[in-house]
Structures are given as structure tokens and as C-alpha cells.
């Protein structure tokens, strides 16, 4: 069927009057790829300019829409051999882009000022111990002021603005002591310069800003990098729908472009692209992504269906609905709202430190001034000493301590296939002591697999080749499992029933038992495979019942064991039937599990665990898990999860393995240890430096050396995270071979369905 691809929602107008589209590109890996794509597109008539951003894997194309349309451009990139997916930039991303550029400009200005002021300061320091005249020193101080004051006014803005905001809300954060410190240091230096004093602190103030901006910028880089990657991934995963126009024409549009009221055709084997009501057709749909339930539901005209379900047997025509009251999605969103509101704002380590820090610093400085006054020093000397205390305690190292570790840890998570949605997720991941798993799609693979153990391989191979001719999801699983590539010629599919072909001159049929002219499978077979879907293959009088079932992720058992070894409590909360959950729990050795839960009950269990003082890591993929993910202390989702669920997870993991859950926990714990070490280093630095400052011995030279030394030390310590944490599951399991004769695991067979979760004693 010839169909048109409509991408008009992604096309923007440039000021010059041309059209512009951004595509996320897959498979780009070298200089040759850049050239092939760019020159390939430039040769198309109507394309004005094509530029590939290799770092972000995004292709920006300007074109004249009267000569070529966006669909043809996507097609052209695909013909060259790369995957291309239209990409709609998020507003958040653009804002963060601007923020990052602004920080970089501030950083550049602060860096320039710090270097030049330091040049002058070192001359003054060496001049003070040799033969510098007072006039030269004053000239150098005035020059420093000339550089430092405008630079600080510009580069300090991110801190001043933030400090002003929190002060207006009558709160304190780290930016308040920073701003006070910088402003006082500059003011004091100006006064000292005017009175021809020997010391000025211009260099300390600018250097402070420079180090602090480094920390801020690193923080921003991490957030931006993960956001870009998540954005690409979202468009790579974006699905297309077949929209029925009023003219009866079928147009392929991105699912995101569907509006309520649109009519959509869903063929067998396709995912339902939006929430809606069926207006024609009948089929079975798999709603495991929505409810966790693995058995299929029969639907007909008038039935409500949800985005993410897979259509199994018949073609359906549906009308897209706006989210109405009383639907499952509506219920999930209501629960989500409640869960997000109830979530106690976890105090980030940095904020916690900052909140303790600000009052302590200010009180110390004030006490220093008062102390020196009482001891008989002049007002001028007391204030100079107090300001020296403020400068030396300014939280350079503290501000770098956490972002530096976050950058390294995020990079490491990224390399092992974990994408953070949320910057402070690392800290919360490290705190988790209980992991709650969803079953379907989380512990098991998102797609069903063939259980080929009891079937004649020869027969199975023929079945798989025949399955290539079918659109049915179970047939697709069969064909994929065997890796067959050559379909039989002349195969005919009867929608919703099966597929048949002539093989070696005899008829072969693959499909339901009825289609293969058999009675329903015997009770024996049905009982053995209560959790599997059967497809039957009949050829030349031989018959195979091929069970296709949800299978565990390949390394699930090893990972759950390794997690238990690390002192984490594991729990399964599933929306599926007890009969389907129990074998999984037994195979993984997870003693606490509950089945048949709806979203509200999942939240209730998580609340119960929270009230016992546990910190829960929720791992889930279904739409029904989304509220539980939001309610949990921290959450993870596989990349195959429902859209809404992904949006509420703190991190996503890629691939068919469960190992990323283990790696996430290990890397996060190590990162938290390093963060604490760094904070301790910052505190030790202060413990040494503050008494010296209070005693009044801090010259600008000492301040400069102490500040840079502590900052560099903290950064180097953060880099240690790169050296150690090479966590592979093989390495973990090598130390702890799976014991199949563990008495605990055997005992689970006797746990009643829906066993209670015992409170921790």
C-alpha cells in the first residue's frame, strides 16, 4: 500500500523563509558517515543545507518545501543507510542550552580576571618582601580593582541572583555566604587600596568566583548531556500511526501528532499509538505494558484501549480520545499527582551541607570581629580579620565536592547503559536498602520468547520460516528467536487465525489449534503451560505445540543474588496473576512477593515500606507502575517502559539485561562515598584554615594557596571514581556462584499466593 508520511508537525520556518527539520540519526560512527550523509543530502534538489552534529547525533536540514518534503528527506537518509527520526526539541533543553552558554561566558570572564589579577598580585607579594615603592603597589592595586570589579559584577551574577531569590523567600543557601564573601572582599580591598594598605583581596574574590563557576558549569554539563541523550532516545522510540483522513486516505503520522477525534487504523502486530475507543474491528490485545497482566484481552467495537498495548490478531479502527474521567490512565494520573505531592523533598547532600554551613560561617566571622574588638584591636583590624575569615571559609571546595563526583559517576553510568533523568538520583540510589521489582517487562523480557526445549529442531526451523510470513506478534517472536531470514514462497496469512504454505509439496499450517484442524490442546499440555501462549505447527502429519512465554532477563537470577549479597531486600509487586508471579519469585529466590495489585495497592505497599523507615528503589516499566515509581524514594525503568512511566523514573536503563540495576547501585554507592570524603576534605581544610584566619595571620597569599589547593584536591579525589568501579555482573557472580540447593529458595514453594510482607524487626 502506498502511503504518505506526514511530518509537518516537526517542520519549522526559518527567518529566511526556508523550512527546517531536526532529525535524530542512528548509526553514525565516523568521519565518513558525516560526509556521506551531508553530501548525500546536499545533492538532493531543494535541500539548502544539511549539517550533522556529531556530538549530539542530530542532523539539521534546511530545505525549500515546494521542492522536497520532510518525509523524502528522512527516506533519503535511510537510503544512505542510517536511521533517521524526526526530533522535536524540548523547551527545557533550549533553556538549559542558554544557561550553559551563560555559565561558560561567566567562567571565561572570571578566568581572564583571575589570571590577570594574579599576575599583578604576585608582583605585589614579591614586591612587599623586596623593594617595591608604595606608589607602584597602589598602581597595581588600582589596576587589579579595575579588572576585578567589572569581572565580578558580570561573572558573579549567577550567585548574586540566586542568593537574592532565596533571601527574598527568607531562606539560606550556599550562594548567600558566597555573595556576602565576594562583595565584602571586594569592598574591603577597595578601602585598603584607597588607604594605601599593603594587602588587597581582589585575587581571592575573583579566584573564588572562578572555582565556583567551574563547579556550577560541570553540574550543568551533566544535566545537559543526559537531556540530549534522552531526547534522542525518545525520538528514536517514537512510534508512527496510520491515520485515516476524511477522504479515506491512509497517512502515516508520528504518534505524537495525533489529536483527539482522529481515526487510526491499527494492524495486527502494531502497537496502539494513543488512548482511544475502538469503532470497528475485533481483536485480542496484549496490555502487559499497561497492567502487567500477561493474558490477552479480547476487544471489539466500543472497547477502551490504551497507548502501548499490542494488537494481536485483527485490524482495528479506533478513535483517539482525550483523557476522560474514569479511564485507567486518568486514575493513574490522579495517583501520580498525589504521589508526587506527598513525596517528601529529599534534602540533597550539597544543600544539607550548605544549610549548615552558611550560619556557621557568618557567626564565626562575627565572633572574630567581636573577639578582636574586646581584645583591644582597632575597629579596622577587627573587620579585616573577620572578612579574612569569610574569604578563607568560602565554600570553594564544598561547591566542587559534589558536582565533580556527579560528573564522573554520571559518565560511568552512561557508559554502562544507564541514563539519569534526575541529577540527584545518584545520591538517592546510594541510599536505597529495599528494591521493589515489577515482574512483567522488568524481571522478564519485554517481549515473549520461544521455549524450544521440547521441540524437534527440524520442525521448529520450518515453523520459524513460515512465521516470517505472519504479522502476528507471537509469530514474530518465533521468527526472531530462530533468526530465520528466508520465508516460504506462496505463504498465505489468514488474519487472526494463522498462516499456511506448501512445503516440500505438503501443506504446512502455523497458527491456532483450530486453524491447524486440531482439537484444543489436550488438558495435559494446557496445564503444563498455563503461563504460555501456544502456537501450533502442523506439517506432513507431524504436529508441534510451540509454547511462547514471558522469559526472565538472561542475568536476572545472578543479579538478584548479587543484590541480596549487598544487603538489599528484594520484593516483587506485580499486577499479574499469582500463578504467573510465583514461579518467577521462586526461580529468583525472592521471598517476598505479591500479585494481582492495582496501582493504588502498589503505592500502599510502598508507603508501608516507607513507614518502616526503608528507602525503596522501585524498578518498573508498566503504566500501572508509574505512580509507584513516583512514590518510591528512587526509581529505575527499562527503556521499553511506557512513556508516562519513563517520565517519572529517575533513571532509565538500556538493553535486555538486568545488570544495570546492580551497576547503578554499586556506582551510586561509590559516588556517595566519594562525595562524603570530599565534604570531609572540605571540612578538614576549613578546620585548619579557620583558626589561622581567626588569629589574623591570613594574607592574600595564604588565602590563594589554601583555596586552590583544596579545590584541586577535591577534584582529584572525585576522579578516583573512574579508576575503581568497573562493575560487571560476571565479576560479581564469579565471587558468588549461584547455589541451587539453597534451602531458602526451596522453601518458597510453600509460600502462599499473595504472601504478606513482614515488617522488618
Amino acid at each position: 500500500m502506498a502511503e504518505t508520511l506526514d511530518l509537518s508537525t516537526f517542520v519549522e520556518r526559518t527567518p529566511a523563509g526556508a523550512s527546517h527539520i531536526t532529525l535524530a540519526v542512528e548509526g553514525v560512527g565516523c568521519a565518513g558517515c558525516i560526509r556521506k550523509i551531508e553530501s548525500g543530502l546536499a545533492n538532493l534538489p531543494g535541500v539548502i543545507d544539511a549539517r550533522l552534529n556529531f556530538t549530539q547525533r542530530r542532523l539539521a536540514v534546511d530545505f525549500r518545501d515546494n521542492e522536497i518534503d520532510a518525509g523524502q528527506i528522512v527516506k533519503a537518509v535511510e537510503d544512505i543507510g542510517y536511521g533517521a527520526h524526526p526530533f522535536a526539541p524540548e523547551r527545557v533543553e533550549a533553556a538549559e542550552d542558554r544557561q550553559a552558554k551563560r555559565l561558560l561566558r561567566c567562567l571565561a570572564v572570571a578566568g581572564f580576571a583571575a589570571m590577570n589579577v594574579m599576575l599583578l598580585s604576585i608582583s605585589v607579594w614579591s614586591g612587599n618582601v623586596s623593594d617595591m615603592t608604595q606608589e607602584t603597589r597602589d598602581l597595581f592595586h588600582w589596576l587589579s580593582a579595575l579588572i576585578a570589579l567589572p569581572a565580578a559584577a558580570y561573572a558573579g551574577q549567577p550567585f548574586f541572583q540566586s542568593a537574592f531569590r532565596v533571601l527574598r523567600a527568607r531562606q539560606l543557601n550556599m550562594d548567600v555566604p558566597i555573595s556576602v564573601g565576594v562583595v565584602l572582599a571586594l569592598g574591603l580591598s577597595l578601602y585598603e587600596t584607597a588607604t594605601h594598605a599593603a594587602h588587597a583581596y581582589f585575587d581571592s574574590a575573583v579566584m573564588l568566583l572562578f572555582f565556583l563557576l567551574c563547579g556550577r558549569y560541570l553540574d550543568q554539563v551533566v544535566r545537559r548531556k543526559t537531556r540530549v541523550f534522552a531526547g534522542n532516545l525518545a525520538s528514536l522510540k517514537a512510534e508512527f500511526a496510520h491515520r485515516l483522513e476524511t477522504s479515506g486516505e491512509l497517512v502515516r503520522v508520528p504518534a505524537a501528532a495525533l489529536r483527539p477525534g482522529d481515526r487510526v487504523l491499527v494492524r495486527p502486530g502494531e502497537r496502539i499509538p494513543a488512548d482511544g475507543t475502538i469503532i470497528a474491528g475485533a481483536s485480542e490485545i496484549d496490555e502487559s505494558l499497561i497492567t502487567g497482566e500477561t493474558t490477552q484481552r479480547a476487544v471489539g467495537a466500543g472497547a477502551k484501549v490504551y497507548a502501548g498495548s499490542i494488537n494481536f490478531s485483527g485490524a482495528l479502527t479506533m478513535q483517539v480520545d482525550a483523557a476522560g474521567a474514569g479511564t485507567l490512565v486518568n486514575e493513574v494520573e490522579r495517583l501520580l499527582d498525589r504521589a508526587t505531592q506527598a513525596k517528601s523533598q529529599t534534602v540533597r547532600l550539597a544543600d544539607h551541607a550548605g544549610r549548615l554551613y552558611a550560619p556557621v560561617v557568618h557567626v564565626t566571622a562575627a565572633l572574630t570581629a567581636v573577639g578582636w574588638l574586646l581584645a583591644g584591636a582597632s575597629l579596622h583590624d577587627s573587620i579585616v580579620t573577620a572578612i579574612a575569615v569569610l574569604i578563607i571559609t568560602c565554600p570553594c571546595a564544598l561547591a566542587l565536592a559534589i558536582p565533580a563526583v556527579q560528573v564522573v559517576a554520571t559518565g560511568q553510568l552512561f557508559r554502562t547503559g544507564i541514563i539519569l533523568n534526575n541529577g540527584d538520583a545518584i545520591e538517592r540510589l546510594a541510599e536505597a536498602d529495599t528494591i521493589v521489582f515489577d515482574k512483567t517487562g522488568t524481571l522478564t523480557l519485554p517481549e515473549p520468547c520461544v521455549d524450544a526445549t521440547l521441540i524437534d529442531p527440524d520442525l521448529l526451523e520450518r515453523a520459524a520460516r513460515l512465521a516470517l510470513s505472519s504479522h502476528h506478534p507471537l509469530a514474530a517472536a518465533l521468527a526472531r528467536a530462530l533468526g530465520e531470514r528466508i520465508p516460504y514462497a506462496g505463504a498465505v496469512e489468514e488474519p487472526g487465525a494463522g498462516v499456511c504454505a506448501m512445503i516440500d509439496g505438503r501443506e504446512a499450517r502455523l497458527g491456532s489449534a483450530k486453524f491447524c484442524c486440531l482439537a484444543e490442546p489436550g488438558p495435559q499440555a494446557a496445564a503444563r503451560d498455563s503461563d504460555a501462549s501456544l502456537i501450533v505447527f502442523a506439517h506432513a502429519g507431524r504436529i508441534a505445540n510451540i509454547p511462547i512465554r514471558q522469559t526472565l532477563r538472561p542475568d536476572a537470577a545472578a543479579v538478584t543474588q548479587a543484590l541480596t549479597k549487598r544487603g538489599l531486600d528484594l520484593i516483587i509487586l506485580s499486577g499479574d496473576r499469582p500463578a504467573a508471579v510465583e514461579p518467577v519469585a521462586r526461580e529468583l529466590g525472592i521471598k517476598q512477593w505479591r500479585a494481582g495489585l492495582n496501582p493504588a495497592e502498589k503505592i500502599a505497599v510502598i508507603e508501608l515500606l516507607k513507614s518502616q523507615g526503608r528507602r525503596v528503589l522501585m524498578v518498573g516499566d508498566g503504566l500501572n507502575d508509574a505512580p509507584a515509581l513516583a512514590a518510591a524514594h528512587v526509581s529505575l525503568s527499562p527503556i521499553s517502559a511506557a512513556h508516562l512511566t519513563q517520565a517519572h523514573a529517575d533513571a532509565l536503563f538500556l538493553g535486555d539485561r538486568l545488570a544495570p540495576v546492580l551497576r547503578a547501585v554499586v556506582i551510586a554507592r561509590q559516588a556517595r562515598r566519594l562525595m562524603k570524603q570530599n565534604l570531609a576534605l572540605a571540612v578538614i581544610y576549613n578546620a585548619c584554615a579557620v583558626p589561622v584566619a581567626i588569629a589574623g595571620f591570613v594574607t592574600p597569599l595564604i588565602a590563594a594557596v589554601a583555596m586552590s589547593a583544596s579545590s584541586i584536591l577535591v577534584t582529584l579525589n572525585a576522579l578516583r571514581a573512574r579508576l575503581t568501579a568497573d562493575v560487571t555482573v560476571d565479576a560479581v557472580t564469579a565471587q558468588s556462584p549461584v547455589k541451587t540447593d539453597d534451602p531458602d529458595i526451596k522453601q518458597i514453594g510453600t509460600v502462599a499466593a499473595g504472601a504478606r510482607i513482614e515488617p522488618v524487626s
Partner: protein
Amino acid sequence: MNVLIYLVPMALALGLTGLVAFLWSLKSGQYDDLDGAAQRILPDDDIKT
């Protein structure tokens, strides 16, 4: 010490030139695609003869 009268402004002017050059390169998007720039220098058949 009179040499300072023109040496210090010269040093400052040089530093400022560097800063302005950086800000200009940032604004013109030269840091938007760092990995791409590293790759793009490799092929040389785009030189039009």
C-alpha cells in the same frame, strides 16, 4: 619602573583579546560539536579544485 606604563596595558590588552576571541568563538557555535570537529578534519576530498 616607567616601563610599566606601557607593559601593563599591553599585557591587559593581550589578555582581553584572548577573552574576546573566546567569547566570539563561543557565540559562533564552535563548541557546539566538539567530537564532530575532530572527525571532520580527517576526510580531505571535500576540497574543491
